[in-house]
Structure formats: structure tokens, C-alpha cells
């Protein structure tokens, strides 16, 4: 049977991987300790030893391990990305998640048996794009960007054999995945090559009499009053002075939470649901995995019972998810919107 609503959870460390496995993930995704993936933060991610132990632990419990290689190699350092693909192929991983077509070509040529997933950073929003990657590089799954409404997702699903993975929960990018250059304006490093949006060395928080200030490379991007919830220090979630008015001009600090739409996603045959957050701690992974496992099980148990819009996630699940959300609130994002 083809995959349906597999729960794919983030792991930035071995304990996080184990937390995902122990709490019911069907798959975990991880990255190496360098800029070959988009969570290139100091101290995070897997070295060879942790990778081997992680794969052993997950496979023992029947859980898949995927590796994110979702940044764009640069001409002078491309060998690092090639090596990472080789590592993935020889370590017994279940798939790699790629954004760069050049890297896909390499993987396809050198390791024809390695399963390829198209990363959200590849920004494929139409079935034509998805099918192109299938035709040229043999990708077997595509993670769709969070810009599409569910009817638009349906249109992709109906016109491709490629498995489709959607985001279920987590920090929200401003919705131009793989193309965002905001961070480079302030830091000089693009997330797609450096591997981190708002790298730690550029971030400064300071409590001042006016509130807590967040700066990115000296640029003030937000100031929170004591009773305001905070978000990640990214430019897209800053408050800016626009013609004399200061507000969230691009996006509010909020997380995506598409749980309410699980029955619709099941009906469309969505292969997998991705949870964001490789930068987060094992406690988050455990909490979020547990809640999503319960929700997916509830939906799968009696799929026919749910009419569109009739699924009400338990209040305790939503409370748990909101608690760990940016700004302590969540949104259905683009999945639910009446316009295209």
C-alpha cells in the first residue's frame, strides 16, 4: 500500500531523534553538521557517530530516517554536498531531501538506488514542476511549499504519481521557500547557501526599559512589550515603520498548524505530514510528535466519519501545540483560504 499520512518529525540531535521515534514518528529527518542543510546552527545536527546510532535506533523500531541536503551548493565547495550525498547513500538512510537540481543529477548518476525527495526549498508549486523533477531525476516524493491552498494541492495530487508531503506544524517561512533573500540583506548570508536564516552570530536580544529588543546585525527588527509573546528573530517577522505606522508588515510571529485539515489531507491521499523544528530541543519533539501521532491515528481510524470541516482536534492537543508555537499562536496558513 502506498504511504498515507506518515508522520515525519525533526531531529537536531540524537536525543531528539529518539524522542521522535519513542513518541510515534513514522520517519525522522536530520542534517549533517555543516551548511549542506538549512539548519546550520552551532552545536546542532549529526556527526558520523550520531548518524550511525540514530539510524540503528530508528530502524530497530521500524522508523525511517531521511536526510535534509536542502541548501544550494556553491561552485567552490560543491564537493562537500557530493560527499554528503555519498554519506547518505552508504549509511543506509531511507531517502535524501534535495532542493538543488545539480545535486539531484549527481545523486541520480552516482547512487541510482538512493530515494530522492524534493525539498520544500525546491519551491515546486505546480504538478508540471513536480513531474519535471520526476522525469529528470526520478524523485519519489515532493514536499509542497506552504503557499498553496488545499484545492491547489489537490490539483497537484491529481496530476502526478509523485507522493506528496505537506507541512503539518511549525515555524512559518514567509512563503517564498527557496527564494528568500531577506536574511542576506541584514547578515550578508543567504539561508539557501549559508544554511541558516538569521544565524546566531547576527542575533542580539536585549531587555531595555521600552521592552525586549531583537536586533539582526544591528538592525532593530522588533521590540516586545513585557506582555507580548515573541517570535524567531527573522526579518520576515519583524515590525517595521511603513509610512509612519509600525506593524508586522510581512507576517506575524505565528506557527503553522494544519491539524484541523487532516481528514481532507487523508482524502487527497497525502503521503506524509512534516513537522518543522530541527533547531528545537528534544522536549519539543516529544510533545509535538505525541500530539500529532494521536491526531493522525484518530483520523485514520475512521476516515469515512469525517465530513469536510467536521474534525475537531482535542482542545488539549491544540493547547499543547499553541504553547510551543511562535508567538504562542498558530494559523492554518494558506491551506485554508477561499481565494487563489
Amino acid at each position: 500500500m502506498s504511504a498515507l499520512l506518515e508522520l515525519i518529525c525533526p531531529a537536531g540531535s540524537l536525543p531528539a531523534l529518539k524522542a521522535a521515534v519513542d513518541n510515534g514518528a513514522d520517519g525522522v529527518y536530520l542534517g549533517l553538521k555543516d551548511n549542506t542543510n538549512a539548519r546550520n546552527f552551532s552545536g546542532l545536527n549529526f556527526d558520523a557517530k550520531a548518524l550511525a546510532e540514530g539510524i540503528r535506533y530508528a530502524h530497530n523500531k521500524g522508523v525511517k530516517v531521511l536526510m535534509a541536503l536542502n541548501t544550494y551548493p556553491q561552485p567552490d565547495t560543491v564537493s562537500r554536498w557530493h560527499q554528503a550525498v555519498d554519506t547518505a547513500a552508504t549509511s543506509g538512510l531511507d531517502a535524501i531531501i534535495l532542493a538543488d537540481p545539480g545535486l539531484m543529477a549527481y545523486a541520480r548518476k552516482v547512487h541510482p538506488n538512493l530515494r530522492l525527495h524534493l525539498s520544500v526549498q525546491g519551491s515546486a508549486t505546480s504538478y508540471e514542476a513536480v513531474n519535471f523533477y520526476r522525469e529528470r531525476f526520478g524523485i519519489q516524493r515532493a514536499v509542497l511549499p506552504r503557499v498553496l491552498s488545499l484545492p491547489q494541492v489537490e490539483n497537484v495530487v491529481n496530476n502526478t504519481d509523485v507522493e506528496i508531503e505537506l507541512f503539518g506544524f511549525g515555524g512559518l517561512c514567509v512563503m517564498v521557500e527557496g527564494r528568500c533573500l531577506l536574511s542576506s540583506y541584514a547578515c550578508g548570508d543567504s539561508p539557501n547557501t549559508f544554511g541558516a536564516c538569521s544565524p546566531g552570530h547576527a542575533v542580539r536580544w536585549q531587555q531595555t526599559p521600552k521592552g525586549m529588543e531583537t536586533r539582526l546585525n544591528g538592525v532593530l527588527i522588533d521590540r516586545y512589550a513585557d506582555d507580548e509573546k515573541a517570535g524567531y528573530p527573522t526579518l520576515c517577522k519583524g515590525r517595521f515603520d511603513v509610512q509612519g505606522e509600525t506593524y508586522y508588515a510581512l507576517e506575524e510571529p505565528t506557527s503553522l498548524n494544519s491539524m484541523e485539515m487532516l481528514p481532507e489531507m487523508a482524502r487527497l491521499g497525502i503521503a506524509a505530514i512534516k513537522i518543522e523544528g530541527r533547531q528545537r530541543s528534544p522536549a519539543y519533539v516529544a510533545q509535538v510528535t505525541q500530539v500529532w501521532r494521536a491526531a493522525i491515528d484518530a483520523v485514520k481510524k475512521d476516515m469515512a466519519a469525517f465530513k469536510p470541516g467536521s474534525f475537531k482536534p482535542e482542545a488539549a492537543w491544540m493547547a499543547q501545540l499553541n504553547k510551543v508555537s511562535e508567538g504562542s499562536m498558530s494559523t492554518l496558513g494558506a491551506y485554508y483560504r477561499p481565494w487563489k
Partner: protein
Amino acid sequence: MLGTLRFAQPTNYPETTMKLPNFPKPLARFVSTLPSWPASRAFVAAGNLVAWPSLRDLDWSHVAGRRFRVQVSDLGLKLYFSVHANGFRALHNGLADVTFTATAQDFARLALRLEDPDTLFFNRRLLIEGDTDLGLTVKNMLDAVELETATAGMPVGMGRVVMKLRHLALK
């Protein structure tokens, strides 16, 4: 496209916080009268005894000699220390490279892996000031230590107490 975000839902769900015993008030009052230097020394001594055995094998090279300040806000306690190849070292008050501020209860929840630092940050219960990258590095290094390894390195009985506390709070 930006209009999609108008669907943000306000948090009107009840808070779900797993409970740990609160720090007793009289004890808190007593602790807040302690001067920093002896407190830092006591903290460092405890840290070297309880935590260091499971931390000594980490690569501290990027962190060695950097100055940390831990401010326990509800106890009015400030702890200054640095990390070296042979363990934690207490420092006299002064400038710190990075400062962590939270309540005793929240620090305990972080140490027991009951809470994620980002969650506490979003909820304004954890503040990291100074060198963010240093703070992040240490956070990620500690996250990568397995709880079993950490408790196994603790003095006899201590590890069991930690696991028991965690278990109780998760219930």
C-alpha cells in the same frame, strides 16, 4: 498572499504546564540574600559533581573561557562561571559574554528536558542576552547529551531522583 495570515487564531486554550514543585517561599527569600561569589562557587561545585562527568567528553573548545551569567529571576540570584577542560569555574561578578535569565522553576524544567528553550523564549519566560551564538551553541551541546548518559554520571541515587522528578512532572 500575505492576507492568508489573518487566520491566526488567538490562544484561548488553557495553558498546559506540567507541574514541578515550587521553590518554597522562605527558602527563596533566604537565597536572594546570598552574595553572588559564594553562590557561584556553590553552584559550580555542585555542577562539577553532578553534571561534569557526563559533559567532560563534549568538545568545549569553542566555549572554553567564555563567561556565563545565569540569573534566577525569582530568587534574585546571579551566578557567574566559565567552563574549562577540567570543569566549571566560578567567576567574580563582572561582565558576562552571555546571560540567561529565567525563574528557578523554568531552569529546572529545562534541565529536566521537560521544556524546550524556544517555547520558553516565545512565552517570554527565558531571556538570552549577549552572545546569542554562544548561548545557542551551549544549548545545542547540552541537547545532544542523552539523559541516560547524564544521569549515569551522577553520584549514586542522584540520577534516580532526577528521573523520578521528570517522570512525576510528565504524568
